[in-house]
């Protein structure tokens, strides 16, 4: 029991999904420009992401430049200062005979040279290019050479040989220090070149981002304008079409109403004016009035049904249905029509058909319209065939209504499902109808996620097929139910 309930729930959900899909497809075709506009906006967002990526790269490059070149230049400034300080403090020791001061200057010089040595090690550790490594090693070597001279000069100063100290500094110390200074200058140039390259890269990123952003904005603006224009135009066209449809509808309904009303009016006037004499004539006029009133009632019913199927979200009472139940309901409802026309009906329903999900009244009305059409266009051959079968490949149940009537000309096939359309042959043959039957049948089938198709041959007849899809879960359930049945069959 519980399994059956679950199955029903699944089928109902599946039917809703199918209905929603059809509804969505209609909406999509109606709002294609809006969708395109959204796609453009998505594209804009994509370009925005690219621009953001470029900006992030720019930021990373700037950060790299700051951490590399700018910080490097700052460190280089410290390095240059400490190198100068090393030499300066050494020479300060020459300016005094006070041993304490000389030791103090020597200390300061050594402290400064430790700063330089550390700076060079740091520079080498952070060197990324062969050029930087080469410069670093050269500086390290030249700085060591200068320090040896500096130590000797300091020693001479402290030992009380200032003259020799000055001579040593001038002859060896100055050239050695010049080499160090040249190395530092080369490093500075390298830093400047790197900073310049990175700045160029940032400028390139910035240029590219600007171009992309501008192009994107321009494209977005242009396409957006076009899309807005198209949407407005589409809406306007839709509004015009709706107005035209409403006018056509009113005109058609008015026309259809006028005919029976006129007939009824004429018959009534004749009776009122005493032109109808005798019971036979009175019966004839009474029959005209009742026939036309019946036609009028039918027309009003059809119009109301058409209006109901025209709503965007028709409300249906979905439940699990058996196909034979639907067919029986349709035959029962058209029994009077069939008997009056003297038509024979041949029903063939495949055994073990799975249940479907739908609204009984809607499906029944759909079949009733098709049966009524088959009777009306049977051209003397009063045979109507109803068949139901499972189309496993298409995952649907097909219910067809067949007649051996006049058939439909190819030129009419494209219009037979349009509301109020009536074939010129039908009109010429005085076949009564509102032109709403097939339109209502088609809309009813589509409203339940299905469809309506037709195959016809002039002089042979027509077959209208209602396609009712079923959900995958329902199919699984159906298979499980059918296998034991098949196994039971001899």
């Amino acid at each position, binding site marked *: 029991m519980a399994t059956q309930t679950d199955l029903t729930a699944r089928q109902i959900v599946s039917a809703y999904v199918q209905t929603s899909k059809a509804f969505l497809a209609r909406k999509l075709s109606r709002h294609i420009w809006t969708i395109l506009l959204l796609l453009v906006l998505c594209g804009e967002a994509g370009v925005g992401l690219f621009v953001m990526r470029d900006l992030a790269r720019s930021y990373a490059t700037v950060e790299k430049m700051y951490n590399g070149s700018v910080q490097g230049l700052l460190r280089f400034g410290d390095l240059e200062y400490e190198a100068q300080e090393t030499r300066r403090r050494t020479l300060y020791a020459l300016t005094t005979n006070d*041993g304490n001061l000389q*030791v*103090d200057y*020597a*200390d300061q010089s050594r402290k400064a040279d430790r700063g330089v040595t550390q700076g060079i090690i740091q520079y080498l550790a952070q060197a990324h290019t062969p050029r930087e490594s080469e410069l670093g090693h050269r500086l390290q070597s030249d700085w060591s050479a200068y320090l040896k001279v500096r130590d000797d000069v*300091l020693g001479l100063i*402290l*030992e*009380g*040989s200032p003259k020799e100290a000055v001579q040593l500094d001038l002859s060896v110390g100055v050239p050695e220090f010049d080499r160090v200074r040249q190395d530092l200058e080369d490093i500075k140039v390298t830093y400047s070149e790197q900073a310049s390259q990175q700045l160029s890269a940032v400028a390139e990123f910035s240029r590219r981002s600007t171009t992309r952003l501008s192009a994107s904005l321009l494209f977005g603006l242009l396409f957006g304008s076009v899309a807005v224009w198209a949407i407005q135009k589409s809406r306007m066209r839709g509004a015009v079409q709706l107005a035209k449809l409403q006018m056509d509808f009113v005109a058609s309904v008015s026309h259809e109403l006028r005919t029976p009303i006129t007939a009824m009016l004429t018959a009534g006037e004749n009776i009122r004016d005493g032109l109808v004499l005798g019971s036979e004539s009175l019966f004839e006029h009474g029959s005209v009035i009742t026939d036309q009133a019946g036609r009028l009632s039918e027309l009003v019913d059809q119009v109301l049904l058409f209006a109901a199927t025209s709503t965007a979200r028709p409300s249906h009472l979905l439940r699990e249905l058996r196909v034979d139940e639907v067919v029986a309901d349709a035959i029962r409802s058209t029994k009077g029509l069939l008997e009056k026309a003297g038509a024979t009906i041949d029903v063939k329903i495949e055994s073990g058909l799975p249940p479907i999900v739908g609204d009984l009244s809607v499906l029944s009305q759909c079949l009733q319209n098709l049966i009524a059409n088959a009777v009306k266009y049977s051209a003397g051959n009063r045979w109507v065939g109803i068949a139901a079968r499972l189309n496993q490949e298409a995952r649907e149940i097909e219910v067809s209504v067949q007649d051996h009537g006049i058939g439909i000309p190819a030129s009419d096939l494209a219009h037979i499902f349009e509301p109020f359309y009536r074939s010129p042959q039908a009109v010429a043959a005085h076949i009564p109808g509102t032109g709403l039957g097939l339109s209502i049948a088609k809309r009813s089938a589509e409203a339940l996620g299905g469809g309506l198709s037709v195959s016809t041959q002039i002089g042979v007849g027509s077959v209208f097929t209602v396609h009712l899809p079923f959900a995958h879960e329902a199919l699984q359930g159906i298979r499980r139910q059918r296998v034991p049945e098949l196994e039971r069959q001899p």
Partner: protein
Amino acid sequence: MMLGLTQNQTAQATPPSSQTRSKPTQSLAIVVNRSNPIDNLSYRELRKIFLGERNHWPNGHRIAVAMLDYGQPERETVLRLIYRLDENGYQDRLLRGMFLGDVLVAPKTLASPLILRKFVFNAPGAIGYLRASDVDDSVKVIRIDGMLPDNKDYKLQIDERSSE
């Protein structure tokens, strides 16, 4: 390597025996620059260097004597044990030597053992003195008559009474 000193000076250089001291003493280390190849000096050679009678090391570097400032026990000890003079005698001798040209470079007078240690560290030809406890790896302690300051027969012992 032995540097020649006079016999007379040698006789005067005998320091007081450690057994006669009543207070705990500390050795006075003679320190040179670590690049100096000298490892040992005789007591006589040491006096000669401090008196300015010898101006260069065998490696050619000028000898730069480092003295601590006036009033410090180490200086008192050096004046007493190496120069064998009191402060006034040392000053007189220095002035006379400078005036006569016997002393080419006056000893550097430095304010503290720390500065003296740094001086010796920086000057390859420097020689100075420090309490054994003030010595570190930046300078080299040389043997005097083959003995290091921790030797019980080491001659240069600071007499703390001299600073009282």
